[in-house]
C-alpha cells in the first residue's frame, strides 16, 4: 500500500487537533510523508469539523475525498462526511457514542480511564491508529514521550501507557488495513509546517521586522506565527484598532525604514484600499498578506475561496503599480513571501501575497527551505542636503528612497500630487511627469515578473491554467490521469500579467481555466491580456478546496 487517508471528525474543542498533531508528528518521525488539512465551522465549540491526514510513501500535497480510516468522535460526524464513507472505509471508535452500525468498537475513553482519566483518550486513539499503520511500537512510544516532553515525567509516563494500550487494541483488530506503508528515508531531513508558517518564515527571510494586523480569519494565522517569532527576532508586532489603522501604520513603518507586513482577509483588505492608494502615491513599499475566504461580506469565515483577486488588483483609486503573488505550495509560500519584501522595496510599491484558508491551514512534509547566507539589505539611500524623494529621470520610474534619520537630507512624502521634493503642486506638466513616473514602474515590474511555470507534457494539446492553491490538487489530478498532451500552466505571479502568456495559450487546442471561485476572475484577466478565450472553466465556490478525485473527474470530462 502506498498511502492511507485518515479522517478525524467531531465537535470543535473535542480533541481532533490533539490526535492530529500527535499522529502527524509520529508519522513524520517514522519517515512517512504526511499531509493534513482541516475544515471547520465558524464556532468555538460544538458543530462538526474534520481533519484529513494522508500518510504516504510519496510526497502528498493535496486533499482527497477517499477515506481509508475514519475516527468519528460524534454521531454527527457520520452524516457530516456523507458519501465520503464507502464500503472500503474502516470506521473505528466508540460505538456507544457514535452509534454507527458498521463501525468497529474501540472504547477509547474506557481504556483511558484505566490509565487515569478521559484526558488520555486521544493518546489511546493515536496508539490504535499507529498499530493499524504498523509503525514500530517502541519508536512511536519514544515519539509520544517527546511530544509531552514539556509536560513532565508523570504526564509522559501516563501517555506512554495510554499509547501502549491503544496500540495493543489496534493490533488486536487483526489485519484491518492491508499492508504496511513503506517509509521514505528522505523525510528525515524534511520540515513539516503550515502555509501560514511558510509565509511567516518567508517574511522573516525577507527582512520583515514590523507586523501589524487586526484579527480576521484566516489572516490571523500569520499574525500569530509572527507574534511567536517576535520572541526570538527583532520584530515589532502590534494589534491595531482597525484595518485602516493597520495599513497606515505599516506604510508609516516602511517610511521610517522598517519592512512591514500586514495580514488580513478580504473584509479587512477592503478597508485598507485607500492606504494601498497612499502607498502608490507616496511610492512607499507595502506588503499585505491576504488570506482569502469566501465573500461577499462576512461570507463563510472559516472556509476557503480564491475570490479576492479582483479586489486585490483593483485595490485603491488611481493608476499605480500593485504586484500580486499567489503561492501554490509551501516552498512558494516561503519564497514568494520573501520576494514580496524585496519587490516592494525595489519598486517602492504595494505587493500582495494572496493565499487562502486552505493554504494557510494545511500542512505537509516538504524539503527544508533554502536560505540565503546574508540577510536582505534595505533598499534605501543615505540622503545628502538637497535630497529630493521623487527625483525624476530614471527610465523605470524609480527614484532612490531615503528614510528620515539616515543622512542629512529631509524626506518629504505627500498624498497630494507633489513635485520632486514632495511638495504639493498642481502644475500640469509636473502632474503628467509624476503620473508617467508611476506608470513606468508598472512596465518595469512586468519585465521583472516571475514567469508562469509549465507542468506536464511540453507538447500539450490541452492546457490547464490556474493560480495559487489549486496547483497541488491539479498536479495530483494530472498525475492520476497520466494523459499525454496534457499540461498545467501555474501562475505564482498573477499581476501585472507576466509577458509571453499568449504564446502558451496559442500552442494549445483546448484551454481550461481552473480556479476556486464562482466566475473565473483570473481567467478573465488572461483573456483580457491574450485575447484568447478559454474553452472551459472549472470553478468551485462551496467553500472547500478541490479534492484530487473531483478535479480528476472534471478534467477528464473535458478531454
Amino acid at each position, binding site marked *: 500500500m502506498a498511502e492511507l487517508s485518515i479522517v478525524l471528525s467531531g465537535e470543535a474543542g473535542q480533541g481532533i487537533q490533539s490526535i492530529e498533531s500527535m499522529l502527524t508528528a509520529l508519522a513524520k518521525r517514522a519517515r512517512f510523508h504526511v499531509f493534513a488539512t482541516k475544515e471547520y465551522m465558524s464556532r468555538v465549540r460544538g458543530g462538526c469539523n474534520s481533519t484529513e491526514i494522508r500518510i504516504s510513501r510519496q510526497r502528498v500535497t493535496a486533499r482527497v475525498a477517499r477515506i481509508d480510516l475514519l475516527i468519528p468522535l460524534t454521531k454527527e460526524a457520520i452524516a457530516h462526511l456523507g458519501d465520503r464513507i464507502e464500503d472500503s472505509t474502516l470506521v473505528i471508535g466508540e460505538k456507544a457514542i457514535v452509534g454507527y452500525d458498521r463501525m468497529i468498537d474501540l472504547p477509547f475513553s474506557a481504556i483511558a480511564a484505566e490509565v487515569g482519566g478521559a484526558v488520555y483518550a486521544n493518546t489511546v486513539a493515536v496508539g490504535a491508529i499507529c498499530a493499524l499503520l504498523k509503525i514500530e511500537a517502541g519508536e512511536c512510544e519514544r515519539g509520544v514521550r517527546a511530544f509531552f516532553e514539556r509536560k513532565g515525567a508523570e504526564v509522559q509516563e501516563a501517555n506512554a501507557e495510554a499509547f501502549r494500550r491503544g496500540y495493543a487494541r489496534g493490533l488486536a483488530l487483526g489485519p484491518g488495513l492491508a499492508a504496511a506503508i513503506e517509509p521514505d528515508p528522505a523525510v528525515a531531513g524534511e520540515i513539516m509546517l503550515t502555509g501560514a508558517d511558510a509565509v511567516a518564515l518567508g517574511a522573516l527571510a525577507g527582512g520583515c521586522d514590523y507586523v501589524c494586523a487586526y484579527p480576521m480569519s484566516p489572516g490571523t494565522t500569520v499574525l500569530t506565527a509572527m507574534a511567536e517569532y517576535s520572541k526570538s527576532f527583532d520584530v515589532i508586532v502590534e494589534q491595531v484598532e482597525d484595518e485602516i489603522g493597520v495599513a497606515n501604520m505599516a506604510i508609516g*513603518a516602511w517610511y*521610517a525604514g522598517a519592512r512591514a507586513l500586514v495580514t488580513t482577509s478580504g473584509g479587512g483588505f477592503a478597508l485598507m484600499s485607500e492606504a494601498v492608494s497612499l502607498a502608490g502615491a*507616496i511610492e512607499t513599499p507595502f506588503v499585505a498578506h491576504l488570506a482569502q475566504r469566501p465573500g461577499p461580506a462576512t461570507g463563510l469565515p472559516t472556509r476557503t475561496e480564491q475570490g479576492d483577486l479582483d479586489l486585490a488588483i483593483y485595490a485603491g483609486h488611481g493608476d499605480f503599480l500593485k504586484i500580486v503573488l499567489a503561492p501554490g505550495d509551501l516552498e512558494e509560500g516561503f519564497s514568494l513571501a520573501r520576494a514580496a519584501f524585496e519587490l516592494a522595496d525595489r519598486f517602492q510599491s504595494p505587493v500582495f501575497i494572496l493565499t487562502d484558508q486552505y493554504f494557510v491551514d494545511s500542512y505537509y512534509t516538504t524539503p527544508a527551505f533554502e536560505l540565503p547566507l546574508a*540577510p536582505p539589505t534595505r533598499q*534605501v539611500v543615505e540622503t545628502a542636503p538637497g535630497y529630493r524623494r521623487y527625483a525624476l529621470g530614471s527610465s523605470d520610474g524609480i527614484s532612490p528612497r531615503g528614510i528620515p534619520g539616515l543622512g542629512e537630507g529631509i524626506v518629504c512624502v505627500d498624498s497630494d500630487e507633489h513635485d520632486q521634493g514632495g511638495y504639493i503642486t498642481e502644475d500640469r506638466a509636473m502632474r503628467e511627469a509624476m503620473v508617467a513616473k508611476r506608470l513606468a514602474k508598472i512596465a518595469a515590474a512586468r519585465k521583472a515578473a516571475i514567469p508562469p511555470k509549465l507542468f506536464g507534457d511540453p507538447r500539450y494539446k490541452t492546457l490547464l491554467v490556474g493560480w495559487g492553491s489549486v496547483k497541488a490538487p491539479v498536479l495530483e489530478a494530472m498525475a492520476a490521469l497520466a494523459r499525454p498532451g496534457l499540461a498545467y500552466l501555474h501562475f505564482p505571479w498573477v499581476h501585472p500579467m507576466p509577458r509571453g502568456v499568449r504564446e502558451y495559450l496559442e500552442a494549445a487546442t483546448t484551454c481550461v481555466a481552473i480556479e476556486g471561485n464562482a466566475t473565473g476572475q483570473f481567467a478573465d484577466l488572461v483573456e483580457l491580456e491574450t485575447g484568447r478565450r478559454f474553452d472551459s472553466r472549472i470553478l468551485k465556490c462551496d467553500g472547500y478546496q478541490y479534492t484530487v478525485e473531483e478535479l480528476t473527474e472534471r478534467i477528464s470530462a473535458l478531454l
Partner: protein
Amino acid sequence: MATNAFDFESKPDISWCPGCGDFAIRRSLLAALQELGIPRGKLVMVSGIGQAAKMPQYVNSSFFNGLHGRALPAATAIKAVAPDLTVVAEGGDGDMYGEGGNHFLHAARRNPDIALFVHENMVYGLTKGQAAPTSRVGMRTPVQVFGVTSEPLNPMALAIAMNVGFVARAFSGDIEGTTRIMKRAILHRGFALVDIFQPCVSFNKQNTLQWFKENTYPLEEGYKADDRAAAFARALEEKPFPLGVLYESAERQPFEELLPAYREDKRPLRERAHDMAALRAAVMAKA
C-alpha cells in the same frame, strides 16, 4: 537667510486664507522647534488632510503627509521604528477627532511618544464650512442647514478620561503661550495632546477671534496639573474654556519603550538585520 532652522530660504506658497489662525500656530510651532534645538534631520512632521494638516508642507523638515484622519497610526509606527526621531502629528479637528477619531482613542491607549497638535476651528475649513465634531450645537452650515444637533466632542475631557499624560488647550491668539505649551508637549515622554483654538475666518462666522477671547481664560498661577479628577472637572468647563496645561503626568511609559525589540537594543530598526543562523534554526525547528 531664514532665521529659524525650520523655515525656508524662500517664502513657501502657503494656501491658508489671509487672517487664518493657522499662520499664528505656524509661528508658535517654528519657535518651539527652534527653541528646543531639535536637529532638523531628526524631526518628522506627520499629518492627514485639511487646512491644518498642510502644516508639514510649511516646515522645513522631513514629513509624512498621508491620508485624511490617518496621521496617528503612521506617526505611531514612525516613532516605533525610529525612536531617535522627534515625531509631531498635526491636523484639524475634523481630521483628528472625526475621520481619525478611532485612531485618536487608540493612540491615547498606546501612548507613543508623539506630540499631537490639533487646530480646533470648530469647522471643516478645506471642504468649505461643514460642521466639525467640535462645532457647537445650533451652528448653521451649508449642510447642517437647520443647525448642528450633535453634542460637540470634548477633546480635553476625552483625553483625560483616557489617561493621556499631557493634555493642554492653547489659543492661536496667544503665540508665546502656544509656543510654551508646544515645547512642553514635545518634551513630554508619551502621547501629548495640545488642542489649539483657532478662528476660521472664511467658514466660521460664529467662533471668531473675538469669540475665543471672550470665552476663554488662562488657568490661574499655581494651578496643579497633576490631579486627574480636578483636571477632568476643568475639562468640563465651557464658556469660558480654561487655557493651559490641564493635566500632566509622567506615570505611563511610552509605547515604543515597552516594545520587546528595544528592551536591550536601543538602535532604530533601520540599523538592524535578522540573524540568519537564528532563521535557519527557526526553519529547522519544523523538522
